[in-house]
């Protein structure tokens, strides 16, 4: 039994083995222990005229609980060190201890803005493990609801982006659009945020009359509504000049940093999993892949912002086609209640609003996966902030971070 209490810690009243931080909520930028890695010792050594600035973990524009230690010289960021883990829930460990049906509700809160996409890749991986054929109507419903949520997610991105630059109005319009979509989805899933809707082998319940009438109503004015929200910001000179030429990302750096999704396409790489590695019914649907920043210097924050707006138009096209082409039939494959896939491995990846959502699942023949790795695009994109921010102004840190659109729930898993 340990008897000495380390400095800065107190012992829990419930269990004396547990150490608690004495002062919760105070953050010293420099850690109280010697540096453990090359990078850490380099970062925590101050040069001439430099100082540390602690930002977070409760900073309003960090899109969650993220702490960033900035090393600044005057108004310029010399280097930065993101500190993660404030939202870590151990989802992968929980998934290893849940049965296959239960996992869908475990992965839902990973990325709370677009939770259907978090469900989609595990469900696809398990279907590969089980060799299940998904009914075509279910695939169409998945694409339809997924694209609706992509529109909602990009609408929210637009509002956040403006909010991080100090504009309050667009987020109000964003939430009007998002609210219409989540209410629509709530009529078939029963939930506004964590839908828990996809099932292994299909979806939980067919589309109903309320959903269809809400969707038809929304579709009749969605394009116009989108034009309105574009007009709010795209002609705003302050917004455009703040966004231009910050956080430039070129093709080579983007690929080497393992970037995917809109951020990669805004760096000039026409890579979209819906076309590059087709899944579900996407091969049957017509849509374009917008690409920006094809020049040698790549795309900036404005390109990443504009690309997402163009993607919304393509999503509206897909939703329209889904409504017209949706076949009749069942929405669930016939499967036993208790799933025991044969031992094996499966990887499934989908294109979400932020990039590649992947799941690597290993089955050992029991009703729980032996290992489940969840790949979240926000996690990869956040480490890009370090590369893009060096030499920029402090005020631009949040703009660049917002233009990459990370969600901390996905980063911290």
């Amino acid at each position: 039994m340990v008897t000495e209490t380390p400095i800065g810690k107190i012992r829990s009243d419930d269990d004396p083995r547990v150490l608690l931080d004495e002062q919760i909520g105070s953050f010293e930028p420099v850690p109280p222990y010697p540096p453990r890695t090359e990078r850490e010792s380099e970062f925590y050594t101050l040069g001439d005229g430099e100082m540390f600035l602690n930002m977070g973990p409760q900073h309003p524009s960090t899109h969650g609980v993220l702490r960033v230690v900035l090393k600044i010289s005057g108004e310029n960021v010399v280097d930065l060190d993101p500190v993660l883990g404030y939202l870590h829930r151990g989802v992968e460990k929980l998934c290893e201890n849940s049965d296959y049906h239960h996992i869908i509700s475990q992965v839902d809160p990973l990325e709370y803005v677009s939770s259907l996409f978090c469900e989609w890749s595990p469900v696809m991986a398990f279907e590969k493990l089980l060799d299940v054929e998904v009914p075509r109507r279910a695939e169409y419903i998945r694409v339809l609801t997924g694209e609706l949520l992509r529109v909602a997610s990009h609408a929210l991105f637009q509002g956040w982006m403006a909010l991080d630059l100090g504009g309050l109005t667009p987020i109000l319009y964003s939430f009007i659009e998002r609210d219409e979509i989540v209410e629509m989805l709530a009529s078939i899933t029963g939930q506004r945020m964590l839908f828990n809707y996809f099932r292994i082998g299909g979806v939980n319940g067919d589309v109903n009359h309320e959903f269809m009438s809400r969707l038809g109503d929304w579709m009749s004015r969605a394009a116009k509504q989108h034009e309105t929200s574009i007009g709010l910001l795209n002609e705003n000179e302050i917004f455009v000049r703040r966004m231009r030429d910050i956080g430039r990302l070129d093709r080579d750096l983007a690929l080497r940093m393992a970037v995917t999704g809109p951020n990669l396409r805004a760096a000039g790489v026409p890579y979209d999993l819906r076309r590059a590695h087709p899944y579900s019914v996407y091969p049957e649907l017509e849509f374009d892949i917008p690409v920006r920043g094809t020049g040698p210097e790549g795309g900036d924050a404005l390109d990443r912002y504009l690309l997402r707006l163009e993607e919304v138009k393509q999503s509206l096209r897909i939703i329209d086609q889904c409504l017209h082409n949706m076949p009749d039939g069942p929405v669930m494959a016939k499967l036993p209640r208790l799933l025991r896939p044969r031992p094996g491995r499966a990887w499934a990846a989908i294109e979400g609003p932020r990039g590649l959502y992947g799941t690597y699942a290993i089955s050992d023949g029991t009703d729980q996966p032996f290992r489940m790795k969840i790949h979240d695009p926000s996690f990869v994109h956040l480490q890009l902030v370090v590369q893009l921010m060096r030499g920029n102004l402090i005020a631009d840190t949040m703009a660049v971070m917002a233009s990459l659109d990370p969600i901390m729930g996905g980063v911290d898993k």
Partner: protein
Amino acid sequence: MDRPLRRRLETRFANELTGPVRQRHDATEIRIGPAALTSVMATLHDEPDLDFALLADLAGVDTGDHMQVVYHLWSAKTPDWLRVIAEPLPRDDPRIPTLTGLWPGAEWMEREAYDMFGIVFEGNRDLRRIYMPPDYTSFPLRKDFFLPDDAARSPGGGVRHVERPEAPPAVAAGSLRRTPGA
């Protein structure tokens, strides 16, 4: 399933492969030893007819017997995903070379695998814990780390920032969940 890719991989990496090339659904799987990792990955990335430009995922795996590091790669030259399994890494001292020279974006993925499994990626400049607190001593996704039956009563339970100062007790080798064939 991309049969030509399988033949290309078999001829190109005849000396490095430690098992047969397997294909199922839309994935092609190769197995290599940890020592060959850097050269195999550089070939996969650089050679024009392979051209695996994108590292889609990096996952650590504890099979109960040994550790693996599993990489998923994407290339425009093939409709398949390529899964590269680097094994075996001994459970008591797992070490593997880093890929940050080829993909600097692998840095955080390697930090995550280190945090969760204790796999040491030699050459990674920033191999710190990424999710767990810096003075945490165990590796949560290893198979000898069990979830407490009752979170409310366990020393690790509760919503406050808590930590267990002592290393977890050693577990009898026979009580681990394992998949030797993984």
